């Protein structure tokens, strides 16, 4: 009962962040919801079993990242009869009047899965060590791969960024976009 209460409290604290994280990774609302639910049910089991509670935020994103990766693999193998049977659900509309955020998020979805995962994990302020665990890469490679992912994202943004002041993202090597 105590574990259940704790899991619900953690869901209140981190549920929205995990949901956003899963949505960014999967671009599929139903799959994202599945990942979130699976993650917090695993958290409940983890707490019930007396698991380590020292870094639960990192733990949550690691579990969510693994669940999302499983979903991506399943989706890759899923053979829809026709596209009409496998509709991608557009993410909810954001308060993004100028289209800048929308373009930036669209650019994220054009990145390879690993790049998107690394950027999404870093956006949760996870340490390189936690990112390495969640993404399954060596800790010593995290910085290099993150830098590349960020550069790729910047290039993607520059190829589609809307024009106009206040909508520019400064990149290190590519100037204003």
């Amino acid at each position, binding site marked *: 009962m105590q574990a*259940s209460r704790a*899991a*619900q409290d953690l*869901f209140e604290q981190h*549920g*929205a*962040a995990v*949901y*956003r*994280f899963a*949505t*960014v990774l999967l671009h599929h609302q*139903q799959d994202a*919801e599945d990942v*979130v*639910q699976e993650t*917090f*049910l695993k958290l*409940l*089991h983890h707490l019930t079993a007396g698991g380590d509670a020292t870094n639960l935020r990192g733990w949550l994103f690691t579990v969510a990242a693994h669940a999302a990766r499983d979903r991506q*693999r*399943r*989706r890759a*193998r*899923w*053979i829809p*009869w*026709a596209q*009409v*049977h496998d509709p991608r659900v557009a*993410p*909810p509309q*954001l*308060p993004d009047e100028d289209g800048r*955020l929308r373009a*930036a*998020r669209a*650019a*994220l979805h054009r990145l390879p899965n690993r790049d998107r995962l690394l*950027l*999404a994990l*870093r*956006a949760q302020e996870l*340490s*390189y060590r936690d990112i390495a665990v969640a993404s399954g890469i060596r800790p010593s490679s995290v*910085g*290099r791969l*993150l*830098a*590349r992912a*960020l*550069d790729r*994202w*910047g290039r993607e*943004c520059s190829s589609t960024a809307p024009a106009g002041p206040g909508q520019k*993202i*400064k*990149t*290190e*090597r590519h100037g204003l976009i």
Partner: protein
Amino acid sequence: MKCLNDAQIQAIVDREAGDDVRQHAESCGHCGDRVRGRQALAAAAVEAINAPSGIPPDFSRRVHFALSEGSNPGATRLRATVARGGSSRPALWTVAAVTAATLIAVLFVAPIVKGPATVSASEILAKSASRLAERVTGIESLEYELVLDGMTREMMPDHENGTYRMKQVIDHDTAGRYLLATYDPSGALVSSIVQDPAANRRVVSARVEDVPYRFEFTLPDNVTLSPPELERLHMGASVAMMQASGNQQLQVIEGAAGRQYRIEVPHVSAESSGAVWDLAEAQVVIDADDYHIVAFAVKGTFLKQPYSLSYRLINRTIAAGTAVQPGLFDLPQDPGAITIKGEGTAIPARDVLVSALGELARARQARQ
């Protein structure tokens, strides 16, 4: 110290760099500019990733419910208690029976469960049964989760897990035109069947020991009930059995999908009835708006073999019949598949077996 590489610049931005690296960036104008440029880029990425998008309230309620319930969401709840023991044997009528099986359900609708309602369970079941019997027009697409155990599980070609995701499309305006696909939990296609009387074609595909097979048949003059129609009949019959029971328990559920009725019958048929088909327990969740079945679960015996079945509807859409897309009722060709062609009968499973044996005999003759 030489100027920093990209990983070191990134590490500074991420507050993961060592002292020597940070000190260099502070003393080197070029590297300092790079750090600031990368900080701006990273901030923009974080903003895009963490852009405020709230968690859907109904989903939040479902998760809270699942966490308060303890665990085990989903349609597998009956599986833990399904009767075991007794022999089970695969049978030729498998496909029809199993697809018909698609009916069951333990539900994990999570929402808020209210107390007993004044509306009659029998009345709801009757309306649901009437709806099942109603004529539908257009193209109906269903996606659902199916969990099998006992006899029905043994009958599936891959019965390691017993959990499947099904996709079904029925053209209600063209008799006998449908497709039915079965996926395992990993999303891999287990088997599929497509029938299109307009093209005089039925195609069955399956993968056995990693070898893909494709069976193409012409259709007989009289096409009998399709698996989706059998499913519908089986569900209707089960609901009728529940309706006949005097021990229905009804709950009204107010959830994300609106009001639903959950009806449970702890024991449907008499003990030791010796009936061909005997339901020990049954549960159904019915949408209160149009009385369609959202989830369904039964356990019992068929031909004295224990089985359980649970069904949870994931998606259901109906489109106008004029909107049939080219290729919708066809299977994509797998270049590596062994293709066998023949004349079909009313029983797809029989056709597959007979045509496969025929090919085997021809292959043997060719070797001699």
